[in-house]
């Protein structure tokens, strides 16, 4: 396994595109959370009545333990950047035909995919680490010493990591199938935003009220529900979204098995 990782590192360490996208990934997670945090602070920190009303309405979504949920939700919106990185890692191999050269040089097809699997795992872990750093930073800055159970929602680190891994796996599958980076990214965004949302609504309406949550990326999207302050607009839906998280974990794992199973099966059957 180590030699697979070493070879992948040789491929990436001198690749400017990789470092640009990694840089964008590293900046985007603190960026999006920091931006919302500063907007919140700005809007609620003065003594005007409107600001105080807003504070009452929102509570403090950036305080422990709620910050775990808030940051997970906000961070999940930025999966497109690491998705592009993952797509690029596989489509580049097709563009340069290096995937076939790797096999010619002595890797099995499975070894090639295992190396890529670890790439996706490592990128997911980096994203999860970024989320954790941002969450802890904002949480410690913003939480008073009197708050107990600061890490009550620390399980969101695992949920966010699982969600990221599942969505990046879906991006990887698209990259493998489509072979062209920007078309694959376009399909990823198009599927995730309009297609799946519309499908979920249609399924909800015509098939079963809960059918939408079984869709490929919706299943993992639901691992990180909206922050509590947004839940106040419809407490019933919010409570329901919290109650299904454990089930979504199993559905997401099932999809992960299906996606990686497909990846290995397609690559075995396909001519390179």
């Amino acid at each position, binding site marked *: 396994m180590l*030699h697979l990782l*070493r*070879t992948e590192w*040789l*491929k990436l360490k*001198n*690749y*400017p*595109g990789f470092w640009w996208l990694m840089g964008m990934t590293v900046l985007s997670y603190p960026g999006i959370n920091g931006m919302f945090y500063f907007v919140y602070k700005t809007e609620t920190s003065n003594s005007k009545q409107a600001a105080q009303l807003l504070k009452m309405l929102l509570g403090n979504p950036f305080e422990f333990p709620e910050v775990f949920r808030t940051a997970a939700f906000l961070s999940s919106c930025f999966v497109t950047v690491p998705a592009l990185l993952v797509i690029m890692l596989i489509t*580049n191999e097709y563009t*340069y*035909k*290096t995937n*076939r*050269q*790797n*096999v*010619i*040089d*002595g*890797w*099995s*097809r499975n*070894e090639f995919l295992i190396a890529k699997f670890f790439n996706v795992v490592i990128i997911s872990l980096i994203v999860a680490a970024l989320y954790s750093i941002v969450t802890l930073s904002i949480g410690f800055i913003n939480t008073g010493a009197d708050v107990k159970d600061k890490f009550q929602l620390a399980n969101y680190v695992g949920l966010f990591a699982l969600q990221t891994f599942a969505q990046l796996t879906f991006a990887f599958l698209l990259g493998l199938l489509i072979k062209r980076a920007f078309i694959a990214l376009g399909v990823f965004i198009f599927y995730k935003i309009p297609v799946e949302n519309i499908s979920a609504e249609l399924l909800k309406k015509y098939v079963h009220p809960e059918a939408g949550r079984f869709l490929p990326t919706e299943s993992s999207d639901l691992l990180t529900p909206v922050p509590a302050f947004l839940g106040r607009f419809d407490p019933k839906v919010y409570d329901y979204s919290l109650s299904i998280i454990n089930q979504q974990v199993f559905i997401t794992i099932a999809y992960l098995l299906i996606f990686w199973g497909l990846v290995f099966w397609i690559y075995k*059957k396909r*001519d*390179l």
Partner: protein
Amino acid sequence: MSVLQVQDLKKTYGKIQALKGVSFEIPEGAVFGILGPNGSGKTTMLSIILDVLNADSGSYSWFGQPASPDLRKHIGSLLETPNFYHYLSAVNNLKITNSISGRGDAAAIEAVLHKVKLYERRDSRFSSYSLGMKQRLAIAAALLGDPQILVLDEPTNGLDPVGIMEIRELIIELSKKGHTIIMASHLLDEVEKVCTHVAILKTGTLITSGSVEDVLVDEDIVEIGAADLEQLKHVLSNYPGATSTTFNAQTIQLHFPKGTASAEAMNRYCFNNGIALQYLSIKKKRLEERFFELTNN
């Protein structure tokens, strides 16, 4: 011992049958040329034996063992086009080849870059190379770690005449050292100069294979000349055993079944019939001529 045994390989692309049951063996130490017009299935066959294409049916084995990634690691291969990471230098690309195959080390990387005359540009990005330089790097990757078997698909593609000559000399040198080289090429002259064995494919069918001598020689050709060509024609009109006669401006060619022509007998025959020959030679067919005959081009 056979290095490679190919048994009844078949491959289709949609309705196109690229290989129609090809079988042959490659003996150890051979320089085995695979010839064929465009679309004859040469690259398809090499791609199958290197596991980048899946055959529809048939089998192949290296050294009598089923193909495996570990066996492939000991084969230096250049298939179709040089496939490298465009953003990496020659050295960094060869480090990847080394990391995957286990062939060679840092010193071997320097040595092969010297060998293919890329050492001065070793730190330049692959994307900045000319076509010939890319091909040289692909040859360097194949040579890395001095593998006993080389599979080279059109190795002289994009090379200048000096480069072509260098590759020819390299192949002859490697052959003398006992390496087995499997080479697909369009350049019949090159194949004729370096190959010990040859297989000819046409539209997915193996037309012939064997030693170059066996493939080239399907008949004996004796070419003779004399001062009085008309009298020579007359004398030879009844020469026993000749299957056909070709008349050229200065010489006459007589064709005989393989292994039956005798220069001595012909010389004596002409002399006994009052003709002193000025020229007598047993000719071989050129590979080019034989190739066109076999492929009906």
